[in-house]
């Protein structure tokens, strides 16, 4: 479930005239219920589009947010839905970025570099998944942490390939006719487009039977196996999808920053992705995007004014975990539940009103299912 507009929609009350203020409120709540999600999404699309038009610091900031949001949403797919929290995501983002940079250094065209990078990430995901997905729980966290550190170590120490601590800068970005990623606006719009494609892909995935099976894996894997599911395969596929999408974020990262160095993949960066997901709200896709936006804001803007910005980030995380365990998106969900409860109350009041209207069967508390 990704939004408060999900779940079985209570039917609009059948042809009863609305009475008084309560009736009016009921009708407007019922009518608006299925619209809020799409309208909010459209508003977000328009706002993001407008924010990315300028060349100032706002658009730079928002592009960074979008790149990290892609990686955070991908991690939510694996960590939130499938229950496999990975602490090696920065490593895979780095592989996507280094893939492009190293291929360009070796005189491949920018497009070929993108292809090579994504192929490497995919191959790495397929290969490492065989190891990583064998274990669950804390062991999985530790294994992914180790994998992330190995990737970081390669970037740091394989100087011949990665140029070590200095990192590699990427001078030229892909061009295709009038479509030129070297143009900042085109690049920003491309990032925005990829963000929406990945977000919608993930939303489709989590609502599909495959996504349902991943929630089943997280909830009770042995039961799922007894229902005919080859659960290891489902975990493996979730892993590969997440690693690949994180690599995509890495490609965009190196395009936006035109530089990749080992510090992008270091230990704390891995933790940052998990914080984004938890802060935004596990199992919501959109929540981790919000979480990424807030963390990037802290990292890049707050750090200019507050030296101890990481302390503030920590306090924010503690506050969110204490007061809204569902993260930011938990607040959205709670609002949706309150709205549904209000609809049910208003319906009950309408049904028991003075007019001899036939009492309609009101689903008591339907709608939000999770």
């Amino acid at each position, binding site marked *: 479930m990704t939004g408060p507009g999900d779940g079985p929609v209570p039917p609009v009350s059948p042809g009863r005239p609305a009475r008084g203020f309560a009736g009016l409120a009921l009708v407007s709540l019922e009518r608006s219920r299925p619209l809020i999600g799409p309208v909010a999404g459209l508003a977000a699309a328009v706002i993001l589009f407008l924010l990315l038009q300028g060349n100032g610091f706002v658009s730079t900031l928002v592009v960074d947010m979008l790149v990290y949001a892609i990686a955070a949403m991908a991690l939510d797919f694996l960590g939130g839905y499938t229950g496999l929290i990975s602490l090696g995501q920065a490593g895979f983002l780095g592989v996507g970025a280094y893939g492009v940079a190293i291929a360009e250094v070796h005189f491949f065209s920018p497009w070929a570099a993108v292809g090579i990078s994504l192929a490497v990430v995919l191959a790495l995901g397929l290969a490492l998944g065989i190891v990583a997905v064998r274990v669950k729980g804390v062991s999985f966290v530790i294994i992914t942490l180790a994998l992330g550190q190995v990737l970081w170590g390669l970037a740091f120490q394989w100087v011949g390939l990665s140029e070590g601590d200095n990192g590699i800068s990427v001078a030229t970005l892909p061009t295709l006719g009038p479509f030129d990623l070297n143009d900042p606006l085109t690049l920003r719009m491309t990032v925005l487009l990829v963000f929406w494609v990945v977000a919608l892909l993930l939303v489709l995935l989590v609502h599909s039977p495959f996504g349902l099976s991943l929630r089943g894996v997280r909830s009770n894997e042995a039961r799922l196996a007894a229902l005919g599911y080859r659960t290891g*395969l489902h975990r493996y596929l979730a892993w590969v999808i997440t690693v690949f999408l994180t690599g995509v974020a890495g490609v965009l990262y190196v395009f936006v920053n035109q530089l990749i160095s080992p510090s992008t993949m270091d230990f704390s960066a891995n933790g940052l992705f998990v914080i984004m997901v938890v802060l935004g709200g596990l199992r919501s896709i959109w929540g981790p995007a919000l979480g990424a936006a807030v963390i990037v804001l802290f990292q890049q803007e707050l750090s200019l004014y507050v030296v101890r910005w990481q302390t503030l980030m920590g306090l924010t995380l503690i506050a969110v975990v204490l007061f809204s365990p569902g993260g930011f998106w938990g607040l959205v969900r709670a609002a949706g539940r309150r709205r549904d409860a209000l609809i049910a109350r208003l319906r009950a009041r309408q049904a028991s009103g003075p007019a001899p209207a036939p009492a309609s069967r009101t689903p008591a508390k339907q709608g939000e299912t999770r």
Partner: protein
Amino acid sequence: MTAAQALTQDAGSAPGPPALTAEHLCRRFRGVTAVTDVSLRIPAGTRFGIIGPNGAGKTTLFNLLSGELRPTTGSVALFGRDITGLRTYRRVALGLGRTFQITRVFGDLTVLENLTLAQHGLSRTKLSPLRPWRTYRAMTAAATELAGSFGLAGRLATPAAELSHGEVRELEVLLALALKPRVLLLDEPAAGLSPAERVSIMALLRSLPDELTLVMIEHDIDVLRGVVDSAAVLHLGALVTQGSMRDIQQDDRVRELYLGRAAPGGRHPPGPEGSVS
């Protein structure tokens, strides 16, 4: 083993291979032998009980049959086909369903989501990545119908974690039934239920189609009476006897096991002390 041989000969005259056969199953855990040389032959369409006090190895035997565990030695066959080397999900595809003693439903999924997952279990659609699961009308309709047929119709949107214990046990059985198994292994379906809930789950079990082979674990002989035709008795991992329920209830070793040495003769139904726990 004489009773087992007698049963084997009986079943030999029945048409078709037996639903489930176990040959000399053994399972050791680090030196502890949980199941010792158990051979079973369960003819198709029967209701079969596996009885024994707690710790007798009943659940381990089930895990060997369903594929959660591999036997140290011995083999398992389903309708004559050797399935010893097959993993759980492959056995499920061949028609072997099971429920769990410690209830395993998907707690944070709704009843509808639970049953829909089960509906997709044997279909290729379980890997379908892009189409919302709610749009698989046939699957959700079947899930809804299944829930409705056993009193969970009003609970479709409820997370399974919020169901009552009795409802959870029902959902557990429905999950297994959704796959239309040919053989269903039930691990203490009535465990922890109130007497009223016990009656309703037993009614559910009795209403199952005749061609379905049921194998039920129970430590309380009373519960099995009237539900199963024949049974095997396990004690300390070994088969004590197997045969018809009537024979088992009159078997001295079984009576000793359940009632202690001072068991009076005659046809006293085992009292509350019959449920060794």
